[in-house]
């Protein structure tokens, strides 16, 4: 059956925000502003307290942007390999380091400018083996940028206790005078509080948008979602981001009500796993065009910047329901301590992508429940050589899903190193998988 489709009306709003974001970082100093760099998972509400002219650059989305522009990525990767960086390290990180080492900065439209804008400080988190060390070495490449990493390795949300939360809160508390000292600015708790509210709003609203994709036909396909979820990874504590997500939510909800889908034909619904191969997003278009197969999302797309309930209190079931914002939880944040505690707890408890590092059992339940709740027919897993964190448990999850009777295909690649991808082989895997499931090509129908 043919489905009604139409372009997203707020598409350009998201595109423009992202373009402006990279430019703002570049031009921050012209306006007397502050630049900081860190992981997309950094507690980005904290630097907001330094003023309204504080501009972040988050490394993973920047690395993905580099990967999208193959030639620039190749130059970055080869430059940093010459300095001794191993080829199996995080692909995002190597692009980021290579960009610094070349002293070239990439804008969202692919234009390259020099020099690479040096941050006033690095502020990040550490959960996988790379994050803090990523910025430690970046700081050395940039002649000693002050760097502060927050250890968040306290376990999954359902096992949180006061001492675990306090451990993170104390580190955040220490970060504030550290930032004041570096920037010479006086910290404004009101701006922090505003940012913390905005962060939860943006993350929970993104989760609500993802839930709407349970509809049939699905209103969004994953390739487009990549351009939407990313705002939560570049500047989620900016109140403008939450506003854009509300606008998107309204539009997607309206599409569901009116039966507007993402694809003209939807004969096969699947999930992906792991970050995509950014240089080869044509994989998604191939599946759509050849098989009317729609990717509904992934733990990555839903959970990287989404706030979800996650594991239940007993640790027995994963719940794909949006996490409550302070307003929904009936919490009023009035001072620094409350703000830090809220952002620490919200992220530790509800950030879906911070849960499965501590047990592959969590990731099995998380993936299985997602497939069930969104009525997917299968999962196509990217065995990603570019990220050891997201690759953790992948094969155990595969084994679990197969035993549960869920069709699984795997292909090997690299999210951010275009040299590590075999396009022909990947399409062959897809064709064989579809054939084995009896999914016909649209052209053959």
């Amino acid at each position, binding site marked *: 059956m043919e489905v009604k489709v139409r372009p997203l009306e707020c598409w350009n709003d998201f595109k423009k925000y992202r373009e402006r974001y990279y430019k703002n970082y570049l031009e921050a100093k012209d306006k007397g502003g502050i630049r900081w760099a860190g992981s997309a998972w950094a507690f980005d509400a904290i630097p907001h307290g330094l003023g309204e002219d504080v501009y972040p650059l988050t490394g993973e989305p920047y690395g993905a942007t580099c990967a999208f522009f193959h030639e620039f990525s190749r130059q970055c990767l080869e430059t940093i390999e010459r*300095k*001794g*960086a*191993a080829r*199996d*390290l*995080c692909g995002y990180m190597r692009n980021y380091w290579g960009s610094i080492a070349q002293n070239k900065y990439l804008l969202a439209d692919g234009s390259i400018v020099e020099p690479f804008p040096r941050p006033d400080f690095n502020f990040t988190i*550490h*959960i*996988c*083996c*790379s994050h*803090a*060390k*990523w*910025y*430690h*070495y970046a*700081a*050395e490449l940039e002649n*000693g940028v*002050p*760097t*502060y*990493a*927050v*250890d968040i*390795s*306290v*376990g999954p949300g359902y*096992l949180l206790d006061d*001492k*675990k939360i306090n*451990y993170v809160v*104390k*580190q955040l508390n*220490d*970060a504030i005078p*550290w930032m004041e000292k570096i920037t010479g600015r006086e910290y404004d708790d009101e701006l922090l509080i505003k940012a913390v509210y905005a962060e939860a709003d943006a993350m929970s609203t993104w989760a609500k948008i993802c839930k709407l994709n349970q509809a049939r036909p699905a209103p969004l396909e994953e390739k487009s979602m990549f351009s939407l979820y990313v705002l939560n990874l570049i500047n989620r504590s900016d109140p403008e981001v939450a506003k854009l997500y509300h606008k998107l939510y309204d539009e997607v909800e309206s599409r569901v009500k009116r039966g507007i889908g993402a694809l003209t034909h939807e004969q096969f619904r699947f999930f992906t796993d792991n970050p995509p191969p950014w240089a080869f997003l044509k994989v998604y278009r191939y599946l759509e065009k050849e098989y009317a197969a729609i990717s509904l999302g992934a733990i990555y797309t839903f959970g990287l910047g989404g706030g979800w309930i996650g594991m239940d209190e007993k640790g027995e079931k994963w719940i794909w329901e949006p996490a409550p914002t302070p307003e929904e939880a009936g919490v009023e944040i009035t001072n620094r301590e409350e703000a830090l505690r809220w952002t620490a707890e919200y992220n530790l408890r509800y950030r879906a992508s911070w849960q499965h*590092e*501590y*047990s*592959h*059992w969590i990731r099995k339940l998380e993936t299985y429940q997602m497939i069930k709740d969104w009525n997917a027919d299968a999962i196509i897993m990217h*065995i990603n*050589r570019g990220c*050891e*964190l997201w*690759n*953790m*448990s*992948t*094969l*155990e999850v595969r*084994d679990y899903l197969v035993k549960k009777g869920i069709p699984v295909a795997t292909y090997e690649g690299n999210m951010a190193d275009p040299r590590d991808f075999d396009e022909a082989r990947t399409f062959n895997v897809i064709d064989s998988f579809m054939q084995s499931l009896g999914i016909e090509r649209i052209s053959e129908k």
Partner: protein
Amino acid sequence: MGKKVEEVPQLKQFREWFDKRHEYAKEWKRENGGKIVGYYCTYCPEEILYAAGVLPVRILGSHEPESITRPYLHDMYCPFCHDTLAQGLQGRYDYLDGVTLAQSCLHMRQSYFSFVDRVPNIQWSYYMHFPHGVNNPHATPYLRWELEKFKSAVEEWTGVTITNKELDKAIEIYNKNRQLMKKVFELRRGEKPPITGLHAMEMVVSSQVVDKKDHNEILESFLEDLKDVEVDRETGTRLILIGSEDDDRSFLELVEYGINYPATFVYEECCTGARYFWDEVRPNEDRLMALAERYVKRIPCPAKDWAAGELIRRRFQHIEKVIKDYNVQGAIIAQMKFCDPHELDIPSLRVLFDKNNVKHLTLELDITQPIGQFRTRVEAFLEALGEEDLFF
């Protein structure tokens, strides 16, 4: 005339324990009737297990080719995590009652999860949320809390109440082991180190797989006997070994015994070397705090060594000190293939060695080693170092 080091009986004992670690553990169990727990990373607070009458043994690989782990662990995960899981899947750890991991790198975590799920004799497992940020001041009190929970879990499982008295005893035995091995290492600072890196590795790794009481007894007499050892080999180039888990005998034998140019490892900065034992537990009325202090402040694994406000790596500071104290002339960076934490330090580590005028060679270790290729590279490296002596 003193005796030759190869004739020292304690070295044979270390080697036997190293080779027959599983037989030792089974024998220990028969004799003591206690439980044995395998641990995955040297951040495991062994003293707590020991105080409960449990024998902690480090889970190690066997350096044999395997493919049994491929359905569970990705190929780009390190050979050590594959090798350790392979041992479990092949039933070589069939005597273990439990397994534990003090949170370390992702590869060890994945291997641990699969070990827990897929090795049938494992009755008890404990994943400790050990802090990663050992350079931040809040890590110690936080770890104390995690140790308290670990202690309770061990007590519940074993049915043994771990008293301060038992903890003191365990700490004393472990500290003694650390002190004795450190004394052995200090002998290597001299012009003619009495033991090689191979000997040191077998000494340290054997301490990870046997009862420390037994190990201490042998270590004490070893130190005595070392006084009479006549060093009958040319020291040659004084090397430091940098790496993660470097217990491959074939590699150490190659460098120290298989090259035309003499060379001796005088220090191993790895978790089968000094990182395991270098720091002691300092007395504290609060025993768990004492343990937390020790494990947070020990020479860090690169997985935990990064900037928390100050741009320092504590491990690098230690390496710089060792270079001076042990008169290091060359460094071999034995990089475990795919080990991210170590790889992440390599570009900066090269700078550190250059700054200290120490030549370095990076070799990538796998489950088995390409000895022929390594021989060529190490030989060229040592030859180049020798040429510097010749011309300057």
